[in-house]
Structures are given as C-alpha cells and as structure tokens.
C-alpha cells in the first residue's frame, strides 16, 4: 500500500530533477504521514540520489518524520510565545514521560511526538495539541496528568471489542 502512495507521487513528477526533492518528500509525507525507508529508496532511485543524501536533506528541515505517527499524535508548540512561557520544560516532560524524542513514535505505536513552530494559539501558551485537542497553560506537572488520560484510553482501546 505504501508503495502505491510513493508511486503515485512519483508519477506526478515524471522528469523530476534534484530540485524537486523537497516537494516530493512533502507530498509523500502528506499522504503517508511519514517517510518510510522504502519511500526514501524509491525517491532516491527516481532522482538518482543516494539514500544518505535524501536523509541528510530531510533532517535539515524540521518538518519530516521517519516513523509512522502513533495512535495519538502530540504537537508541542515551540513558538516564541510558548518558549517564553516555558515550552522547553513541557517538551522535556513529554519526552521523559513517553521516553521518545521529537520526531519519534513510541515502540507500542501509541504516541508520536512532533515539535511545531507556532500553532497560532499564543494566548494559551504554553500549549500542546493531541489529535486536534488543545491543552493550554501547561507546566511540567500537568503534562503527566494529560498523558495519563491518553494512556488509559489506549488501554481501554486494546481491551474493548473494536
């Protein structure tokens, strides 16, 4: 399935050259949610670029991720307003609680973490967003409470009939 996504994107760039790399990466990520190894290799073949180069370029920009997003995708805002009001320690709290770093997905596939520049919710700073739900005026201690709710949801999801 993921092959199809990449193929479709590449079909739209038949004579793509190296300067199409970023747009292609963006489109694949948009459709696939992340850049799989397979996708990187395919794009590399298409553009005649080595995988190391593509990975290098992609990691230069903060927007790309290389793991599938989790069931709950967490956005931590690191914009100026949030920064001033302590978003660094919020991020640290999430990372510590979930044992993943920005751009990563937890091993059980439940949580994934992304750092974003500004979500336009500066009034609520510092803010995080989980699957579209905003949590405002956070501090180190509060993060844990929120994440516990989602952990419980994940447990229930597993146990339930679905």
């Amino acid at each position, binding site marked *: 399935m993921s092959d199809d996504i990449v193929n479709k994107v590449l079909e739209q760039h038949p004579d793509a050259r190296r300067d199409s790399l970023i747009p292609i990466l963006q489109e694949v990520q948009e459709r696939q949610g992340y850049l799989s*190894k397979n996708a990187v290799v395919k794009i590399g073949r298409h553009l005649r670029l*080595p*995988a*190391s*180069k593509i990975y*290098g370029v992609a*990691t*230069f920009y903060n927007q790309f991720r290389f793991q599938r997003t989790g069931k709950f995708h967490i956005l931590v805002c690191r914009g100026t307003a949030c920064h001033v009001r302590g978003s660094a320690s919020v991020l640290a709290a999430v990372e510590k609680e979930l044992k993943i770093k920005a751009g990563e997905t937890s091993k059980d596939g439940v949580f994934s973490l992304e750092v974003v520049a500004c979500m336009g919710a500066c009034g609520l700073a510092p803010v995080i967003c989980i699957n579209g739900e905003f949590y405002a005026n956070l501090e180190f201690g509060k993060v844990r409470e929120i994440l516990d709710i989602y952990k419980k949801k994940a447990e229930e999801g597993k146990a339930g009939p679905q």
Partner: protein
Amino acid sequence: MFEIEVNGRIIDASPGETILSALKRAGIRVPTLCHMNDLMPSGACRICVVEVEGMRGLIPSCSYPVQEGMKIKTNSAKAIQARKTIIELLLANHPDDCLYCVRNGNCKLQGLAEEYGIRERHFTGKKSRGNIDITSPSIVRDQSKCILCGKCVRICEEVQRVSAIDFVGRGSKTVIAPAFNNNLNVSSCINCGQCVLACPTGALREKSYLREVSEALADPEKIVVVQHAPAVSVSIAEEFGIKPGTDIAGMMVAAFKRLGFKKVFDTSYTADLTIMEEASELVHRVKTGGVLPMMTSCSPGWIKYVEQFYPEFIDNLSTCKSPQQMMGALIKSYFAEKEGIDPAKIFSVSVMPCTAKKFEAGRPEMGRNNIFDIDAVLTTREMARMIKMHGIDFNSVVPEEADLPFGTRSTAGKLFGGTGGVMEAALRTAHFLITGKEMKSLKVEQVRGLDGVKEAKIKVGDLQVGVAVISGVGNASKILEQLKEGRKDLHFIEVMTCPGGCVAGGGQPIETDKEKIKTRLQALYTIDQTETLRTSHANKAVQELYKEYLKEPLGEKSHELLHTHYTKRDVLV
C-alpha cells in the same frame, strides 16, 4: 602568469587559481582543515583566511581566486587572531582525549592548537558525547571528535561515489551519519577507509585488532603467523621517518620475527598464485564463451560495491579469492598438514594497506569447518604502532627473508600493490599460457600510472585483448554503464577500490598524498625493473605448490580453497 605580493614578497600566480594554490607553490603555508586537493573548495572551516589589501573582512584563501596585483598578508595579527578563534571554537566542545586518542601526534586539530599556542579555554561548551559506532568490521566512528569539516562526506561522495554518509540534522545537532542514522555496518559503506585518511581528527579510525594479535602472541598454545601485502613494505617506512618510497621488506620481516611471529609469509606469493588461477580463468572464459569481460576480485571494497550497486555484474567477477584469502586458506590447509599442526591452533594475521580487508576476512565464505582462514587483519598503521610499542629500532635490525613455503615471489606479484599491477601480472601470464612464449616487453606501460581509468588493446597471439584498469571505485561506473549499453571490446577489467591502488589504501600512513602515492608506486616499479623473477608462472615455489598439492589451476583443490562466490546485497543505497 602575473604577480602578486604576499607578506611583502613578490610571487607568481596564474589566472583562475586560488590564493591558496599560489601560496603553496611559493612555499608559504596557510593552515587548512576542510580543503581537499583536486576537489572543489568548500570554504567551510575558514581556518585559511588571509588579509587582502583593500578588501573588507578576511578572505578564505582556499576558495578565493587570485587577482593581478593583489597584496596579501597571510600572517597579519587579524588573520592569526581569527584562526585562533576558530580553533578555540572547535575545541569548545571537544572531548580533549588526546592522550587516549589514536591520532595523538598526527591530529590536524591538535597540531593547530599547538601551532597557534592555545593554552586556555575561552569558550566552554558542553563536551560532545556522541555515540561511538563500532558496528563496522573496518571503521570506527566517534562523533564526539568530529569537527564537521565534511571531508569524509566529500571523499565518499565525490571520489568513491558511494555516499554512505552525509550531514544529518542541522545547527548544533548536526552529525555525520549514514541514512536513517543507521550504523555503518548496515549502510552502503564499502569499508575502503578513504574517509579515515581524509579525516583531520580521531573521529574516523580503523577498527583495531592489535589487542587480539598481542593476546595471541602471548598465548603459548597458539601458533601465530603473519603475512604482509605487497603495498606495505613500500609505505611503512614513512611511519618511522624514513624517506617515502623506500622498500624495507627485509627489515620489516625481521621486525615481525622480533615481535614473535612464528612464520612471516609474503602475500605477493599468493598474488602470484592468484595470477595462475585468474589468468587460467580468463583463458578459460575466452575459450569457452564464458561471461566477459572478467573483472578482478582482489579488492574487497569493489566486491561489495558490485554486490550492492551493480549485482548484474556479479558473474563478471573472477571467482578467485584475493591473495590475502588464498594465503589464509593455504596456511590452515597445506601448511598445517605439512607441519602437522592442528589448524585450530593457528592464529593467522595479515598486515594490509587496507581497512576493507578486515571486512573481507570476516565474510562467511572465508573459512572451512567453522574456522576462519584469517583471524586478524592489521593495517599498515596498526602494525607500525605495534613495532613502536615493542621498541624495535629499524636501524638495528638485520634484513631477513620471508619464510617458506610462501616466501618467494615474482615482481609481478609485488606489482599487485599498485593500480594496473594485477593487470600487468595477469597479461604476462595469460600471454604465456596462450602462446607458450613470454611477452616481448614484460612492462605494459599503458596500464601504469595514476590515471583513474586506463585502457589498452594488447596483442596476445592472434587475440586482441581489450583491457581497462580502474582505480578509485568511483571511476568504475563509467565503464560499467558503457557495458550495460552494449560495449563489447573489453575482455578483462581490473578495479582497485582506492585511487592509486593499495599503495593509497585506507590503512596506509595518515599523511598519504599524491606525491607519496607516486613514490610508493615508483618503488614497486623499481623492484620490477631490478629483479629477475618477473612473471608469476616462473615462480618455482608456486609450481611446487601445484605439483605437491593443488595439481592444476582451476582444479578440484583450487576450487575448494582458492575460489569463492558473491551475493547480491540489500543495503540502503
């Protein structure tokens, strides 16, 4: 040509060249870190800045073109201060491990800190503690010592065209790593070690097996033998301050004996044996319509390159093992039987100009009955370290010969150490096998020298043999692509992974540059010119081995011990 003024002196400069190149010619030294001869300047480190009259700010001499009448100061207070600051910034988060560092004594960063008299820390950054990647059998990456000069990335991409590594991330989080931050062992790295030669610091180094070798030497149960590759004796001298291009084979053998090796064998002997097998294989392929062009198989970096980038050419590779592995197989079979030793008690060491040989020795095909043919591979550098550690003074050793039964070699076998050498040796013997006569001139000028791609048409009897010689594996794709498009006039292709061949291998002394490579190559040519046993088929010791043990080239025993196979590799390329 026009004139420029440097530090009050008039020097010549040519239009289009960089300031640095004019300075170099005039013998004026400006330090560099990221600069690489023969590659486009990157101007990344800015340590080479100079002051140019009438220009604002300092100018990076490595990338700025000279202009007529320029007035340059290379050592103005401003330039020196700028360099000092750059060095101090590089040191700000450096681990300062010099005492424990493999590059202690020949590290560019350490050298600059010393030259510029850095005596205290003005900038204190968090010490980098990046991972040490020891997964590769050949190369160790220590990110904490990396100064991000980019040389490794460039040599891997622009010269070797492998692109196993690149800059990953940005800003203060930047590191050099393979795709997906993978470890080197699962990347497309071919273990050539050219990046190690390029690296100014201890961030890239060979995986060392010195401890294993020392332990084996100290173990009374073990019979420790050593072989040395053709390119080692013409380069190891440099590690001891002896003039580049000096062949010290005899002294080196004597030193090995003092270190306690029971037997010292010459890999050039099995180079001769390789030629017997490989030339026979070539003749066989030509006569029976086998897959052509045949490609040499003694350079393990090249083998991995084909396995991962061009698996469609696997059948073109000669099935001959490399001389190192042929020697390894013979030591634990023929030699062990002859001496009545249990092969499991033999610890077989090889001294190689190469980091990829460490990888080769660990390929699963390279042994029998769960015993590896080669137990440890040391680079020229590691062996030099070992000799120093044992306090052996070359001035006081008396040259000795390598040991029988694998001690005699022809000069053809010795030529294996440089680009074109395998080809020249093979042509000499193929000519003899096909026509029953020696070549009129044994020297094959067209395949000599440092060009990356050399081609020739050689008359062997009625046959016009088309040959190509490639050095620097990045040059191979040109010919391979031509073959894919249907080129048909080539019969035999030699590829050596490193640019210049083994004399320029990734395990050679760190200060390997073009001039040194030339003198090492010349040393091989001189040996060929001055000695009389010049063809592999005339090597009596090799004939003896066939008579006594192998019977005939490509025979049953040969197939069991001296030939191998290759497999397509799935790595992220």
